């Protein structure tokens, strides 16, 4: 069921969809680099049940759509195409904020099998934020044509999340993708993703900051990820946390005993 009671905390990000999402069973975010066929996946899954508009307060186009699977209605939110989630542009900030604050039941990261390495960067960044991730390994047909073979089982094993090979243009693999998304969204499948380890000096700092901020976040965000963003010197994350979680980072942090 759509969790109305939590909607408050999920904040403004979900507000925009409430009209269309009131009768959806899950909310699924669709992330990916530009030019991966993300829109093709989106169009194929939602067909003509689409709604386009703008992200609240931003001049960035937003598309949402629904599809039915095994008797459940799924609301699919097409996030802006981005190469990373480091909030260097309005698009990246929107994609990042949606994944961490709107708390989708699952996030699908569409990747391009013909240049996997570049696309794994985004996957690794997403799994730092949430474990409920499915990788859609798209353009598998094109990869084959180019003589590129991807060992999906091994990839899934290394990432610790499900990987579904697809060729969205002709619909190949999309049924399996829907099954996987459902399993992750319902919790039948709870992935335990790989944790990227950083050089020891950074790890020590992460640990220290993590300890300090964990109480403020009260389990809503992964402290490790927030610590990393603070280390990045990302100014927007503090603002976003304060706005969406309704806490004052600064005041709360003062209360932490030395």
């Amino acid at each position, binding site marked *: 069921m759509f969790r109305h009671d939590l909607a408050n905390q999920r904040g403004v990000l979900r507000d925009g969809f409430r009209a269309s999402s009131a009768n959806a069973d899950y909310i699924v975010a669709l992330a990916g680099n530009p*030019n991966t066929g993300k829109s093709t996946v989106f169009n194929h899954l939602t067909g003509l049940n689409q709604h386009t508009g703008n992200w609240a307060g931003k001049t960035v186009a937003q598309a949402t759509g629904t599809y039915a699977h095994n008797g459940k209605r799924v609301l699919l939110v097409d996030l802006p195409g981005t190469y990373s989630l480091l909030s260097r542009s309005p698009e990246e900030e929107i994609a990042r904020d949606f994944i961490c604050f709107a708390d989708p039941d699952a996030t699908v990261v569409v990747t391009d099998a013909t240049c996997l390495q570049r696309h794994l960067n985004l996957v690794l960044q997403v799994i730092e934020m949430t474990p409920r991730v499915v990788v859609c390994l798209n353009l598998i047909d094109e990869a084959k044509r180019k*003589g*590129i073979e991807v060992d999906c089982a091994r990839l899934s094993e290394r990432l610790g999340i499900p990987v579904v090979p697809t060729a969205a243009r002709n619909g190949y693999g999309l049924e399996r993708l829907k099954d996987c998304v459902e399993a992750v969204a319902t919790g039948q499948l709870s992935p335990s993703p790989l944790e*990227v380890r950083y050089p020891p000096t950074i790890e020590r700092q992460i640990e220290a900051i993590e300890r300090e901020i964990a109480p403020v976040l009260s389990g809503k965000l992964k402290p490790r990820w927030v610590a990393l963003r*603070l280390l990045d010197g990302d100014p927007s994350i503090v603002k976003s946390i304060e706005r969406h979680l309704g806490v004052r980072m600064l005041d709360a942090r*003062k209360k932490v005993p030395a």
Partner: protein
Amino acid sequence: MPNSSVKREVAAGIDRIDIDCTAVVAADADSMTIEDTVKEHASTGRIEDEIVSAIYDHADAIATDVVLRHTRNRVDWDDRIDSILTSKAFGYPVMLLVLALVFWITISGANYPSALLSKLLFGFEDRLTELLLRLHSPEWLHGVLVLGMYRTLAWVVSVMLPPMAIFFPLFTFLEDLGYLPRVAFNLDHWFKRAGAHGKQALTMSMGFGCNAAGVIAARVIESPRERLIAILTNSFVPCNGRFPALIALAATFVGGMSASLSNLIASATVVGLVIIGILVTLLISLALSKTILKGVPSAFTLELPPYRKPQLGRIIVRSLLDRTLFVLKRAVIVALPAGAVTWVVANTYIGGTSVLDIASGWLDPIGRMIGLDGVILLAFILGLPANEIVIPIALMSYLSTGMMIELDSASAMHEVFVSKGWTLITALNFMLFSVLHFPCGTTLLTIKSETGSFKWAAVTAGITTLTAFVVCWLVAQTANLIGGLL
């Protein structure tokens, strides 16, 4: 690579964090080292780089582990094709050829369905007249409804729909194929030299479809300065609403000079106008970035996506639903009231002269100065809601029949214009004015909503109109000079 403006933003943001940090430090001495490290590293960007490179290394390691490449003497066709399409020698010629081909197909393909549609729609007009007569409707009602609204509608549909239905699928085909990013790649460094963003090449390309869409597309440019430049100069490339007029005039006044090569010459003329539009875009962008929108162009990485086999079904559905019907709907909504207003203005007499004639009489001296006349200027002003109706209004004024005349052939239009003193130079200036003048009402409103103020819409209208006047004046004076010498 983070670009310079982003660096600035991040730097500005760090000040805020620094303030937060100081407060924390004062409250909690133990965290001092951490906060200090954060501050120090964030400002030098070293931690940021280390974090990013750790992610990249992981991605690398995993990809190497799971990806197997069969190296069986494969030719990378994408690279091969790109080495031609984006090369110094062939990049521009291929671009111009593709453009010319698109216009040629549009011009030659649209003639027949246009004639068919206009026959059909104007045939229906007689039925409408009969119906109104039978209902004993007053003459003015018949005038406003049939001679004003319906005729404008019929004109707009029959003239616009066929070229759109050909042009948009072709354009979408190029998009789907992956050619447009190559165009952007070719033009990128020109825009950078003009102090603008390379992605402006993309938003400009969108402008060929619809300037309002091009203005919205400028969202892909992150830096506000460069985004404004892209928005302000977008209407310098002709949109689909203006192509029919350009094509019709190019076909009759320029193409008409040679019967056998008519379509080719007409296509070349339209391509020439497009090139002029692009040059003016670059010049004005340069001028803006040197004056009111000063700054350094930011770097960006343009990824050339692989070529994809276009999906014909998708192209047709998307280009017809999203583009053709969208633009047509807009044109129809604007054309109906504009048709009614024009009819009323042309049929309201003050002292024996229609209001339309009085207004065009006032504008005549200004029009003559730039090689046009009062009627043409008035038509452009009345055509503000939609550029599609400029030619019909001009025709109506010339004939003073108080209604838009039926023109099932472009040569009839040509005859009317020639009898009113049009020369090759008049047609040329009309086309130039059409390419360079103020954007349509929808585009101006879009600029207002995208920039959040009327100011930038007004600035756009000012810059474009001034440019159009200057260019047309120069052409008219040069033509006079040459004419005088001969």
